[in-house]
């Protein structure tokens, strides 16, 4: 189950403190690009934007990435 958008795990995810392992290129592009965008701009506004994008991705592709979603709350 995907945590709500205000769950602290999303901040951990976009700041790179929550590591999720995946063999899927699309998912790993999300992780890498989020990391690069956060390194470029770690402001609260950009962090919120990155959380919003990541949350949308997880929600939209919930059925495609079950093992990655299991790790976000694990």
């Amino acid at each position, binding site marked *: 189950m995907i945590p709500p958008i205000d769950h602290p795990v999303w901040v951990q995810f976009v700041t790179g403190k929550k590591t999720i392992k*995946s063999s899927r290129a699309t998912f790993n*592009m999300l992780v890498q*690009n989020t990391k690069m965008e956060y390194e470029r701009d770690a402001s609260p506004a950009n962090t919120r934007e990155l959380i919003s994008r990541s949350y949308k991705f997880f929600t939209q592709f919930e059925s495609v990435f079950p093992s990655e979603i299991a790790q976000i709350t694990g």
Partner: protein
Amino acid sequence: MSITVHAELSSIPEVQAAIDAGESLFLAGSREALSQLPRGNWVGGTICYFMTKEGCLKAEDRIFVTKVPEFALEVKALDYGADNLAQIHRDAPHNGFTFVVLPASSEVLKTFAEKASIFDGFLLHPIVGWVSGVRVDRIGIDKPAVFNGKSGAVLEDRCVALHVSLPIGKMADLEIANIFESGGGDVIRFEETGFHVSQCLVNGKPANLAEYITRKGIPTEFPLVGDYNGSSINVSFLSVDAAKGTVELYAPVFAGVDYLFAKPVADYSAAFAKAVTGEEPESAFACNCILNYLYGKLEGKKAGTLTGPITFGEIAHQLLNQTLVRLQILGVG
């Protein structure tokens, strides 16, 4: 569960008949072949190298056809320039995917390569496709082009897209098969994103990449491999000029990514056979890289079990090099 989609190398009359029958098509063929097609709901690009069930080959009198599945809800053919390329995600369906072809050496390709990952909607709308090219012995003479079959336009400075909307219960998923892996050794980083490189950081220390490659005798037919959270994303070498201290690449390197030189691959055909066994879900579309065809001497050999065009760059959300890309349509829910 994946959905089978018709994709094969076809004669020009067969493609003309499919267009006249109202099929929506994603096409790859020579400029001469594509120029003979009637208007209709199709987009395509110039290329004359293909992966077929019999092996990889060159053909200028046939066209590789990927038919949009009949269950697609809506199909829209559009073209974009560098100035409005970010619009591609806004035009993409909420559930579906977008086929795209971009001409090699064009401004629109440069924009896509450098900025796709910062477009609003990146990764949310799967974009899959390739970079159009020319016959290898005509590089620098002929120009790569793309075709918008809806408008009849033949374009050298814009890309074409076929937006395909899928019904509930079906979902597009992109995968890549990369036969290259990092060979270990020094970690290369770049402070700026781009196709043209001079300075870099080698294990954190400033260096000139061209000088480093030359001094180490690194073979440049194998790519730089970017580490994307464990997935390998390749960037291939166009040229290395040690005298000028410059390196030209087929795709941009990105600041913030760790790159390593790839471990050499001796037998590309065997490597693809191992990477694409036929046991994966069936692909709705696939393409492979012209550099793999050339360096791997794949003419007459198979590149795994997949079929599709062999191209001047591959698109799976972003520009890739020396990579096999595939689209799968999954039954979900």
